[in-house]
């Protein structure tokens, strides 16, 4: 790791997630090994690395989606801003956590309902019943996700009728509708064509003004294009983490250098 300069010290104050000594096992498989890192506020952090290196697993730890996997065992601490204790503590309400740490998945998973109901699902979950209030949230979220103009006349239509890229933006809007602080994105563009990918990348760039974004990507160019910070993973370990430009221009470790220059992976 690089020595921390003044700028880094300043950024540290602005971190929204702190991961300490995190180990994760799937049965006997030691999938994440002693991860320590910070995620910063209003920045885009990219996780890169070859398939099976644990980057998606780590992402799913941050909103406890790994709870759904029965063989999964987690040691260590993850602290998320706004929560009194670390998120795997018994006192944490996992639904409240997921509300403030939203997630967008690899494959667009819009529910088979209308566009409106998709966006309103989250707010309704958290107790908003009044139609005008819901309408305001739906419009606001769709606008933030940059898709309002495309769908505003068809809110009653099934979300499944939209294209893949549009569906993914619906998913982003749906995540935004519960007013999260942090947005996790698990390879959100890997199922999309280049044009939709470009739209989503631009969207991420705008969203970071209000949200902290963690994005898992297979595409190094994508990390270079949009991420402020990048973490490189290999075989369950975090090898290197720094500002994106630094990581790509002056990698500190040999593994990372070999990976970003395409020599393995």
């Amino acid at each position, binding site marked *: 790791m690089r020595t921390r300069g003044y700028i880094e010290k300043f950024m540290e104050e602005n971190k929204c997630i702190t991961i300490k000594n995190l180990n994760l096992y799937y049965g006997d498989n030691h999938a994440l090994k002693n991860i320590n890192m910070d995620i910063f506020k209003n920045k885009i952090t990219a996780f890169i690395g070859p398939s099976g290196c644990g980057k998606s697993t780590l992402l799913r730890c941050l909103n406890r989606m790994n709870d759904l996997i029965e063989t999964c065992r987690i040691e260590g601490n993850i602290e998320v801003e706004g929560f009194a204790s670390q998120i795997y503590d018994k006192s944490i309400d996992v639904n409240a956590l997921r509300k403030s740490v939203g997630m967008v998945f690899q494959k667009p998973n819009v529910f088979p*309902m209308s566009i409106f109901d998709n966006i309103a699902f989250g707010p309704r*979950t958290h107790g908003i019943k009044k139609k005008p209030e819901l309408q305001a949230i739906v419009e606001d979220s769709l606008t933030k996700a940059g898709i309002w103009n495309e769908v505003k006349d068809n809110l009653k239509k099934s979300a499944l009728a939209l294209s893949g890229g549009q569906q993914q933006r619906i998913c982003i809007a749906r995540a935004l509708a519960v007013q999260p602080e942090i947005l996790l994105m698990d390879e959100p563009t890997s199922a999309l064509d280049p044009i939709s990918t470009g739209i989503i990348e631009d969207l991420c760039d705008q969203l970071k003004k209000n949200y902290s974004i963690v994005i898992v990507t297979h595409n190094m160019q994508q990390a270079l294009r949009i991420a402020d910070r990048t973490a490189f993973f290999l075989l369950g370990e975090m090898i290197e983490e720094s500002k994106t430009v630094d990581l790509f221009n002056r990698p500190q470790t040999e593994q990372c250098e070999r990976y970003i220059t395409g020599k393995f992976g």
Partner: protein
Amino acid sequence: MSTMRVGETGLALRDTKRQNMQKMTGATIKWTLFVATIFSLFALLMIVLFLLYRGIPAMADIGFFKFLFGTTWDSPSSQYGILPALLGSLYVTALATVMGVAIGVFSAIFLHRFCKKRFVGPIVQAINILAGIPSVVFGIFGLLVVVPFIQNNLSPDVEGHGILAASIILSIMIAPTVISISLNALKSIPKELFEGALALGASIPQAEFCVVVPAAKGGILAASVLSIGRAIGETMAVMMVIGGDHEIPKGLMQSINTMTALIAGEAREAGGLWLEALIATGILLFVFSLVINFVFMRIRAKVDYRFSMRSKKKNRSPMETLAKSLSVTVLGVGKAMDSDHAKPSVDLSKLFFVDHETKKSNRKKIKFDVLKVLSCVGAGITLVFLASILVFIAKQGVSSLSWHFLFGEYSVDNPSIKPALLGSAYLILISLLIAVPIGIAAAVYMSEYMSRRSKFIKYLRMSVETLASIPSIVYGLFGYILFGSIFGWGYSFLGAGITLAIMVLPGIIRTTEEGLLSVHNMYREGSFALGASKARTTFRVVVPQAASGILTSVILAIGRVVSESAVLLLTLGLVPGALPDTMGPGTSMALDIFYFATQNKEGQAAAAATVLILFVVVINLGATQLAKLLSRKTK
């Protein structure tokens, strides 16, 4: 870090209160579902315990060996030897299975490879109709067509009832199941295998019979085992043509008895030790179905293991879903047909050997051409029987169909099926009101709330499947004694409805669970990621997507309730003309057919059968269309 974020709008303020409420309702929902699951399990236990509790002492009283190996069944002298009926069941089942599986497998091969593509769809539809024909209709067809045919053409000195007639009828009854499961198994074999064989110089029949059929043998075997289970448990159709003499089966034309026919025929008059001897017979039937079910599950596990490469994501077509659910509900099969993405390990060189000597090779090819002809014959037999059943019933029945017959007032001289129509409707109402909520709740609990890796869920599924494989006459016997004598209700719609509810419950659970399990996990994750609770995710996201499966299961249950006759004979009595009354005896469509047939009112029997078949066909078509409609809506 601060506990509460600043700048949150109304959302945060409502949080704590809502969370507590959510937790409470979540727990309530979970407990309700759990209770439904336990209730379903309890129903199974109750039947088993009841059988053992009443049957074992009877066996002891009669003497275990005397019961199993005695040849006399005579109530005045209290001798109850089950051997003739036991052998009769085995004899008829063996014959029927051999014929039915042969016809079925060859038909499936025909449909898979040799049939012109545009005829496949209609033929499969026709076979689905055959699968939906109630057993009592097969019974009257046997009684009015097969029995006289045997009498007139084969053995003038015997009356025609007996082993041969029963086996023929049973083999037609099991053929559709064998066809649909085998066809699915064959379809699941990748076509590369077939093409590989062709590329080595095999003829089309040779490739089919040497490579594709052996590769699908797991599914075909499962189909056969399943059909054994159905044959041994079949009651009404067998009872109507078997003859009913308590004799050791020796010849093909002999009139004998089977265990199911014995129970259905005598339970209503029996009392005391006689009745308990029949319950002991029920135990035997139960043991047989257990063994068959166990063998079936073992085969299926093997097939599944081989096919474990298949992708779970693949969406089934509505028709496949229906065919699958049909077999799930009616027969208890599930995964045997599940082999969409088969990766069978077939060693081409071993199975398939190309001979370079032309003569030999030609002879070999001729052998396969013969097999090809046989497969056409198999399909021919199936279709001829289907056509003759439908034509016979329609021809006999149409002349008796009239407005009065359908909706007029019942009288002995001028009967109508109005009471039966109302009775069937009432039975559907009672049984579904009980079975649908419990079944769906149990299925939701099993698929959404239980750990998918736990041992308990495995045993629970096994119990449900066992419950589904119990012959319906055993349910009938259970209802007859529990509601009829222990509760003192006599024959009643309520008792019959509850018995039917228990009978259709496992099918509803299985089909619903299949539907729920087929909902992709990404939707659950999507909902959880928004902070939705378990209950909300389950009921707002998962269950609506499984709606088509759930509805299909309900419709299939309706079909089963209207077709059922053996259970009703023991629980509802058979009082033609009696209008539905919750605590009174009555009649149903299937019972009326049986009644008319035994009263030599062939026209009326056929007319009622026409109505019933039409109803069942409409129900099955309805289920298909509904499944299509719903799947289009969600796609």
